Each structure stands twice: as structure tokens, then as C-alpha cells.
């Protein structure tokens, strides 16, 4: 068993199990029993039960779970209005408890999907709650957006209704699309089976592998999404480790969000696998930086290189120095389009501790107009259903739901798209230098 230190304490508590987990936390020393600082909420029990029977069962305290039996029926209104009302107090109480165990609460991570009923509806309800109860704590949301061939028919409704909440109450959103994750997983498996990498791929270094064996694509593809998501959260939090240029979560929000509503960040994670040799020639390092900007490595279906950057953050882990960072920024800058008033819009962070199984890694977060197509598509799918008023009655008969909820939500999304359009219109235009202040000499 290892030592419980500061970096672990950002995600876990260390408790003495003899007192039933209610005793005071152990702050330093050996790990006794780790409990995640987390709340698991689901309106049906299947998934949570699976977790509790799996290898992580000791990490989650039964007091940190909120479940129900029947689920939300893929209905945002059921999740948000019905269950929201019903479970509000319960959720607040559990949140307070978890928060009390923290020395210094910096941020909440909400992980959910947009297409369903619980994650989307109850999830955004919790987002609102967090803003009310803990207004000074940052709210980071990783949202899984539905793909085109989603089998949930009402997912456009759910997603758009949820988007309005994200627009108004989240500090930062990292959208993820399953399609992109599947593509990445496929690519890795293809490379392995085509023998290109040969036997040089390090065990356990693949994003998709767990317990040392690689899974085929058909088996549990959603596992890979989960893993990728987890890796992002970990990377984002590498401020828990030392480095020569620390980058904290609040700095991410500060630097990447120039206007409060434009807080959607496109993320990419490289490398996706490590070759067995430990010495990293700079060629490999540079390849990692190039990959971070290619459309294949983005976690949503988007191509940031051909759209407009408002800001970009690079968080590097491992034995990478500031000169490597500088060199690559200089190299890649000419092929990227930055908005005219933020031509030097780079935020960088260096963390000396690499992730497990890799010698170095890079997380790139971009505030880029390439999210626009995702939103436009969502709007189109929504409008297809809405024009026919299909399935609306399922929503409208829930207490608190009215037609206006729908019209407000779609107008919020349209406004957002319009803001991105305006920015795109400035792309490639002449750079106007505003006049400097004239002062009397």
C-alpha cells in the first residue's frame, strides 16, 4: 500500500474503515482506504450496481449514491423537473457532506451525457444546484454528445434542453462525441493488427487496454469512451503534481474563456500509445504536438485547424522543457488561424510527472469555432422533430414543462451559433489596429 499524499487527496479521501468511514480523515501517511470524492447519481440501478460489484467497489461509499428504480425514460423533463424536485434535498445534503470533507474545494466535475434523460436532465439540474449552493466553486462539465446514428429518438430534444443549461450555468464545457472515440479506438486496433507497430507497443499504454489485454472494438466500446474521459479529467488536474510552470483549473477557465458564453473547449489527447523505447528523441516529441492539432485526435468531430481559434492551452506532462514547448508553438503557429485580437493566445503548462505508462503526454484545449458544426447539426435534428411536434407530449405533461421551455432552449442555441458566426466572419479579414490612447504631453 502506498503513501497518501497531496496529489491523491485532490481526488480521494483516506479513511479508517474501522470506524465505518465516518471517522475523521487521515491526512498523511499510509493509505488505509481510499474513498472517492464523488457522488454517483442514476435513476436506475443497473450501472451503479455493476460498479459496486467491480474492482472499484470499495472506493465508492454507499452514502455517496443516489439511485432510483425506473429510470428517466430518455426524457429530459423527467430527469430535470420530476426527479430534480424529488431528490433536491437529498442531493444538496450529500453534496454538502462531501464538500465538508474538503480542505479547499476548487472545482466540481460533472460527467454526463446529453442525449438521455438522467444525465441530461437531472445532470443539468445538479449543475443549477451547484451554482446556487456553491457559487464560487468552478463547474467543469464533460458532456458526451449524441452521434448522428444515436438510437435514442428524443436525444435532440434532450441535448438542446440541456445545452441551454450549460450555456447559462457551466464555467467550462468539454464536449465529447462517441463517434470520435470509436474512430480513435478503431485506428489503434487497426495499427496493432496491421502489424505496423509490431510488438513494440508497451503493455498498458493503450488508451483502450485495461488489465493488460486489448479488447476488440465490438466488446464494450463505451468502456473506451469512459477511459478517454477519465484521462482527460486526470490530465486537466495535473496541477496536483509539481512542475516548472504549474497550470491550475481556474487558470484554464481564466485564459480560455474570453466571453462568458463561449466556454466550449475542444480537447485532444496525445499520444494514444507509447512505443517501448524510453528515450524520446525530439522528433517524437514534435510528432506529439502535431498530432494534437490533427482532426484525428480531437474528441469531437471537428477540425480546429481550419476554423478560428479564440484561445489555446497546451498542458504537457513528463520530461518536456520550455524550449520544446516554444519550438513547437513557433512551428505550428503559422498553420493555425487565431482571432485578430488574440494572435498570441497560447496558455502553457509544464508538469514534471508523466501519466502512468507513458513518458510524456499532451492535452490540448482549444476554444475554437469548430464546435459550431456540432451545434448546428444538433439544431437541425431538433428542428426536424419539433416541426412535427413529435414526442412533445411526453415532455409537456410533466409538471413545470411548457412549450416555452423548448422555444427558449432553441433560441439560446441559435444565439450561441450566431456568436460563433460573427467571430468566423472576422477570420482572414484585415487586422485593424485600434488607435492608441492619446495623452497630453
Amino acid at each position, binding site marked *: 500500500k502506498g503513501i497518501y499524499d497531496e496529489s491523491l487527496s485532490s481526488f480521494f479521501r483516506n479513511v479508517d474503515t474501522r470506524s465505518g468511514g465516518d471517522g475523521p480523515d487521515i491526512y498523511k501517511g499510509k493509505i488505509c482506504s481510499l474513498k472517492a470524492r464523488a457522488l454517483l447519481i442514476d435513476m436506475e440501478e443497473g450501472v451503479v450496481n455493476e460498479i459496486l460489484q467491480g474492482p472499484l467497489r470499495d472506493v465508492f461509499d454507499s452514502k455517496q449514491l443516489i439511485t432510483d428504480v425506473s429510470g428517466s425514460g430518455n426524457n429530459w423533463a423527467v430527469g430535470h423537473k420530476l426527479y430534480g424536485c424529488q431528490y433536491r434535498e437529498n442531493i444538496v445534503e450529500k453534496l454538502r457532506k462531501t464538500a465538508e470533507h474538503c480542505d*479547499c474545494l476548487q472545482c466540481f466535475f460533472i460527467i454526463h451525457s446529453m442525449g438521455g434523460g438522467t444525465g441530461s436532465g437531472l445532470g443539468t439540474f445538479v449543475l443549477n444546484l451547484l451554482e446556487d449552493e456553491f457559487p464560487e466553486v468552478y463547474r467543469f462539465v464533460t458532456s458526451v454528445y449524441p452521434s448522428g446514428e444515436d438510437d435514442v429518438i428524443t436525444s435532440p430534444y434532450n441535448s438542446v434542453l440541456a445545452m441551454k443549461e450549460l450555456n447559462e450555468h457551466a464555467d467550462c464545457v468539454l464536449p465529447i462525441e462517441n463517434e470520435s472515440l470509436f474512430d480513435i479506438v478503431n485506428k489503434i486496433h487497426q495499427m496493432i493488427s496491421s502489424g505496423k507497430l509490431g510488438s513494440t507497443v508497451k503493455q498498458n499504454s493503450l488508451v483502450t487496454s485495461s488489465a493488460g489485454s486489448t479488447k476488440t472494438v465490438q466488446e464494450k466500446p463505451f468502456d473506451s469512451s469512459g477511459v478517454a474521459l477519465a484521462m482527460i479529467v486526470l490530465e486537466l488536474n495535473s496541477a496536483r503534481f509539481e512542475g516548472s510552470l*504549474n497550470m491550475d483549473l481556474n487558470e484554464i477557465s481564466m485564459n480560455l474563456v474570453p466571453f462568458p458564453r463561449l466556454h466550449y473547449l475542444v480537447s485532444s489527447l496525445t499520444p494514444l500509445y507509447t512505443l517501448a523505447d524510453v528515450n524520446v528523441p525530439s522528433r517524437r516529441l514534435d510528432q506529439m504536438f502535431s498530432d494534437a492539432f490533427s482532426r484525428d485526435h480531437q474528441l469531437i468531430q471537428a477540425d480546429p485547424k481550419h476554423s478560428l481559434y479564440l484561445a489555446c492551452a497546451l498542458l504537457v506532462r513528463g520530461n518536456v522543457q520550455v524550449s520544446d514547448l516554444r519550438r513547437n508553438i513557433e512551428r505550428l503557429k503559422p498553420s493555425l488561424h487565431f482571432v485578430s485580437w*488574440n494572435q498570441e493566445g497560447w496558455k502553457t503548462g509544464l508538469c514534471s510527472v508523466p501519466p502512468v505508462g507513458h513518458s510524456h503526454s499532451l492535452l490540448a484545449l482549444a476554444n475554437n469555432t469548430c464546435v459550431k458544426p456540432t451545434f448546428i447539426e444538433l439544431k437541425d435534428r431538433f428542428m426536424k422533430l419539433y416541426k412535427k411536434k413529435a414526442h412533445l407530449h411526453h415532455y409537456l405533461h410533466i409538471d413545470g414543462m411548457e412549450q416555452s421551455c423548448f422555444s427558449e432552449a432553441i433560441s439560446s442555441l441559435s444565439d450561441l451559433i450566431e456568436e460563433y458566426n460573427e467571430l468566423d466572419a472576422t477570420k482572414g479579414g484585415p487586422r485593424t489596429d*485600434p488607435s492608441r490612447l492619446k495623452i497630453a504631453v
Partner: protein
Amino acid sequence: MSIVTVQLGQCGNQIGHEVFNAICSDVHGTHGLCSKKENESYHDACKERFFSEEESEVPVARAVLVDMEPKVISQTLSIAARSGYWKYDDRSHFCQKQGSGNNWANGYSVHGPRHKEVIMNLVQKEAEKCDRLGGFFTIMSMAGGTGSGLGAFVTQCLRDAFPTSFILNHVIWPYGTGEVIVQNYNSVLTLSHLYRSSDALLVHENDVIHKICAQLMKIKQISFRDVNQVIAHQLGSVFQPTYTAEGGLHYSRNPLGDLMETLVPHPEFKMLGLRNIPQMPENSLPYSTFSWPGLIKHLRQMLIANAKMEEGIDWQVRPPQLGSSIPSSHSTNKPMHFNTSIANLVILRGKDMHNVDLGSFRDPSLYTSWLNPQDAFNASLFQQSKVMMNKLEDSSYALVETFLCLKHDGRVRNTEQCICSVDKAYIHQYTKFGIEEEDFLDSFTALEQVISSYTIL
């Protein structure tokens, strides 16, 4: 006289640590070029200036470490203690948990007032430990949130609490292609506030030091540690004890005061720059020789042509001819890129210094017209060949005061672009903590004022 160092934020603490390291290793180095007695008196002067002797066996740095998150300070404290040569006082630090999020407003308007008492108490304690307090030396970067915002606030508090002490702010100018996106905002706000409370601002630019590391020191994979070590080397060479030109036998008793007196004759002109020659990797030393005249010549040209290192100097630039026909409007007469100085201070360290001719620095064409060249130039000598980390035998350093007009222009304009454009990017992050648009405008005005004062020279 003793100097109390205040290390602010990640940058301030990382650099501060390297500075004390450099000074300490200088003191412990052995050199055969001067008498034992001289060595000892050098040691004592140096120690008194930067360290205090307490019950512990190793000297304790006179420093206060401040940061809004704990990792850097705990690292700094432990690395220093492990060296075995010196350490920090275990109680002389203050940190919080959350950091400032690169937000100047957070550092200045929230953390500052909230923690003012605790921080000033620590400073007071360090000040009281000094027999005679020579002043304060603060180290900070301008790009982030703590060093810049909290640093500006702390400087103000220092000025209020110690109205007659000297305050020298060492600021790090961030890389041009961004370490932090809002660095322009943070820098402008910091500069304008520091200008009010500080006595002088000594600027080091990351881009310049990076170049020195790459081209002169030939470091392949440059890390922040390398950059900080170069900076520390330069700073140490300024702050280590020196004899004044007149009082050949005693070490200057008032280092900061002397600095200010020579270099800041007018409170409108507070920006200082530092040039250092020669700089090279340790293993090149056995293959190089230097002579004073050569070094002096290079240094002078570096000064005139606004070059920051001894490679790539533009030798074409010459000072204007004095006494030439056009009496008014200096600007048309001056060649491009010529750097006018307000005051210069040259510090020489090495052997055989009595023969060094510094007359070329006394040339009045180097300076503005309203100062007598005798007043504008000063030399500080150090007899012994005490060398800094690099074990150089002869080295000469000069401290000049100029204002990096062009550079500043670029950055300030960029920031103004953000604000003046209709969108007012990122401002909401600052208004959240109490800095409004007018505050930005005030800062711009203040800086434009300074820029124009320098441009007129």
C-alpha cells in the same frame, strides 16, 4: 546593510531560490587571487546582506516566500534545506491552497487585502532581524496572477509601511508568444501600479534570456531552471558587495540606496535593464581569454545598439555627434536604434582593475542632455576576482537605464486592442473580482505617459 527579499508567486520563488544559491556558492568558492583577510571581509559583507546567522548551523536567507498555492514553496524550502549550505527560515512563508488563476484582479483585490496582515507581519519580522535595513527586493513575474496582482498589492503595502526604505522590483517579462493568454492585461496592470510605489523596476525578459541560453550558453534543451540560473547569475553579480569608486577599501554600505542614487535621478524614469558580459558555458572557460578593453568595448556597443548579449551586436550604430548644427529637435538628429541612456552603472569584477579605462562610458553623447555626464555615470569596482558560478576570471557587468520602448509598445498596443475592440475580451474575468474597465483605462494612461516620456529623450 541588509536586504530583505520578497519572493512572490511561482516565478518569484523559483528565481529567488536560484539567486540565493548563486550568492551562497559564490561565497563558498575558493579563489587564490586575494588575501585571506579580503576574502573574509567579503564573506562577512555578503552574509550580512543576504543571510542572518541564527542558532542553526547554516545561514538563513533573509526572505519572505509568498504564493497562493503550496507546491512551489514547499519544493523551494526543501531543496534549499537539502543543499546543506543555506536554508530559508521555516516560518517565513505564506501560502494558500487555490492559486490566483492567472487573474490579476484576484491577486490584487481579493488575496491582497485578505492576507495583508499575515504577509506584512512576516516582512516585519524579517526586517527586525536586520541590524540595518537597506531595503526590499521583490521578485515576481508579470504574466500570472499572484506575482503580478498580489505583488503589486504587496509593493504598495511595503511602501506604506516603510516609507523611507528603498524598494527594488525585479519583474519578469513573459515570452512574446504567450505563456499565459491574459499576460498582456496582467502586465499592463502590474507595471502601472508598480510605477507608483516602487523606486525602480529591474526587468528581465524571458525571450532574451532564452536566447542567451541557446546561443551563448549552448544549452540544447532549455528548461526554466536554466533560464532562472542565468537570471540569478546576473542578479547576484549586481548585488554582491562592491567597493565604490571613491571609497576603495570599504564595501558599499548601502547597496540599494547607491543603486537608486546613481540610476534613478528622476522619478519618472524607473525602468532598469541589465547587461552582462561575458556569458558562456563552464566548459568553454579554459579555452577563452579576456581582456578588459575588449570587454568594455563590447559592453559599450551592446548598450548603444540595444543588444542584450555579445553576439549579433550591430556595430553600425553610433551615438550622434555632439555640437552638430541642429540645436533643437533631437529626434531628427539621432540615428535609428540608438539607445540613449539616462544613467549607467558599470560593475567590474576581476583582477587588474585599476588600469581599466571607462572613459568611453563617460561620453556625453550617450546620455540625455539634462544630466551632467559626471552624474550620469558611475563605476563600482570589486578588487577581488570573486567569480560567480561560472568561475570567470574577468567579468564586467553594466547596469544601464533605458526604456525598452519598442518592446513595450508592442505589448501595450496588443492589450489595448483587446479592450478597444467592441468585444472587450476577458474583461468579465476581471470585473468578477472588482477591477473595472476604468481601472484598465487608468493603467493604460499611466503607461502611455511613461512611454511618451521615454520617447522624447
